[in-house]
């Protein structure tokens, strides 16, 4: 269960850096980009639990992201519901749809699962795009309200939104950490290793896969809902295939099946793309081959590569230590022999 975040220092470091960032830089643009990155991270964590820890590559998650966003948007704009109630409903509706889709999709495996979910994602996109009377079609949905105040805390400023979304991200990381470092998490990993083996050690694979799928769509929905209230405008393209490819790139670069991967990958790619603004439309010229190269040479991304490197250096140290010990050991036995002989 190797992960960077296992080291408490890394976690505390990350939290501190995230909390202190606004004090260091007053730049609203950076704040905006970081907040957006936090939202993507939440979605990537959802994807990671499913694809990374359970071995099911879902290409429908952009669709679930969009369901979360549109549910929140429609409930607040058209139904005039309270923001927080709409947020909760958005998450639950997304996971409910996730449960229905998962129930059928999870009967398929490997390539079939990927293609099936790809098609589900596309159906979700098309429905949003074509269902003009409900979703506003290509014109999108505008005027989504920012989160309403909770007691004395209001979320109208970019700074307060930054902290609100950071809070949700930390909540996500905590939940993921606890799931992965538990029997439940071990169960998921066992399914990824071999479903046949998992079944013979008494694991109900269908039940567990469905559970993962629902959790995973829950976080996709949460991210989508937060996105809607942060950007305040949504269009059908947030459910398009390109979004899932973006999420996958973040996950793969950071490290699929690692706990810190989603943060590292998303942060890196988002900031790099920002500094390569001129590349915006062509960023895939770089990220496409990067994705392919990573999967060939570093299938577990930056975090996985770092982890392997640490394991190796640790093993080397251990070996050297062992060698010393055996050396001392042989010497002492030889002396013993000599003493006996002598």
């Amino acid at each position, binding site marked *: 269960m190797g992960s960077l975040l296992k080291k408490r220092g890394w976690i505390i470091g990350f939290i501190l850096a995230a909390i202190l960032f606004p004090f260091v830089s007053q730049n609203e643009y950076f704040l905006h980009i970081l907040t957006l990155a936090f939202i993507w991270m939440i979605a990537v964590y959802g994807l990671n639990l499913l694809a990374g820890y359970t071995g099911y590559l879902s290409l429908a998650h952009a669709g679930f992201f969009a369901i979360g966003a549109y549910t929140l948007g429609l409930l607040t704009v058209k139904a005039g519901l309270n923001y927080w109630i709409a947020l909760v409903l958005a998450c639950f509706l997304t996971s409910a749809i996730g449960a229905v889709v998962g129930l059928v999709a999870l009967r398929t495996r490997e390539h079939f699962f990927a293609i099936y979910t790809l098609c589900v994602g596309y159906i979700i996109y098309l429905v949003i795009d074509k269902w003009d009377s409900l979703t506003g079609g290509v014109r999108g949905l505008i005027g989504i309200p920012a989160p309403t105040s909770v007691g004395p805390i209001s979320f109208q400023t970019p700074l307060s939104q930054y902290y609100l979304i950071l809070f949700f991200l930390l909540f996500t990381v905590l*939940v993921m950490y606890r799931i992965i470092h538990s029997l*439940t998490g*071990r169960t998921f*990993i*066992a399914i990824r290793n071999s479903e046949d083996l998992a*079944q*013979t*050690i008494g694991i109900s694979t269908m039940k567990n896969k469905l559970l993962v799928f629902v959790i995973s769509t829950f976080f996709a929905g949460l991210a989508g809902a937060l996105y809607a209230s942060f950007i305040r405008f949504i269009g059908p393209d947030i459910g398009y295939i390109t979004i899932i490819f973006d999420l996958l790139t973040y996950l793969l670069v950071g490290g699929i099946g690692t706990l810190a991967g989603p943060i590292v990958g998303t942060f890196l790619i988002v900031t790099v793309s920002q500094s390569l603004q001129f590349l915006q439309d062509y960023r895939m010229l770089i990220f496409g081959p990067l994705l392919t190269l990573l999967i060939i040479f570093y299938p577990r991304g930056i975090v996985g590569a770092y982890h392997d490197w640490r394991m190796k250096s640790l093993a080397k140290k251990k070996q050297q230590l062992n060698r010393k010990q055996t050396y001392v050991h042989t010497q002492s036995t030889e002396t013993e022999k000599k003493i006996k002989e002598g």
Partner: protein
Amino acid sequence: MLIETKKLTKTFGGLVAVNEVDFTIEKGKINAIIGPNGAGKSTFFNLLSGSYSPTSGRIFYKGKDITKLPPNKIARLGVARTFQTTNLFEQSTVLDNVIVGHRLRTESNLLDAVLRTKRFKREEEKCRDKAMEVLDFVGLTHVRDQLAVSITQEEKKRVAFALALATDPEIVFLDEPTAGINPGETEGLADLMEKMVEQQITVCLIEHKMKMIMALADKIMVLNYGEKIAEGTAEEIMNNQAVIEAYLGGDASA
């Protein structure tokens, strides 16, 4: 009698892989299934552990009909198995690989994990202890904290045994447990099987290494072309005309 099959049959398309096999596994003994390649041994195993559902026939475990049960439910009843190839999570330690084996004897769910409840802590502890215990039993305490990728082939086999034992089984099915390891190590694994029987765990295995089977097994069944051609002790099997013919391929007197 721990497990009993009645006219167990499995066909794939038009091909009969296992044909009306009646077989009994006796409690507290080492039972073996042998036969030439393609005799249907693996299929028979997969039927017993629930991985395949039979075309016809019945399987009873302690008198209870388990024919229609899925493999995870069969495992809960106390039936464990290993596979020919051991799928371990290589980036993780040996201990971590085995802990999940006791999962089926625990109740804690997602909420317990997220909220870190008392039950969660108790059961995490329980599974860890169980994993240590079975690793000790199979003699792997010394590699407990190593990554699974770094251990030897024979050690991987032992981890597979440990994983099966962690489920608290009454019977363990071993699918060619000594394939791909050397004679010295084979003997070590044979000792381990005898040790399991001493602990009241019934063993049933598929094996190619005849010498080992003849010395080890209390009871042997021979399959050929999906049909049972003989059943009995090692001595009975060795003198069975049908078995000799099957193995030598035709008329034994020729």
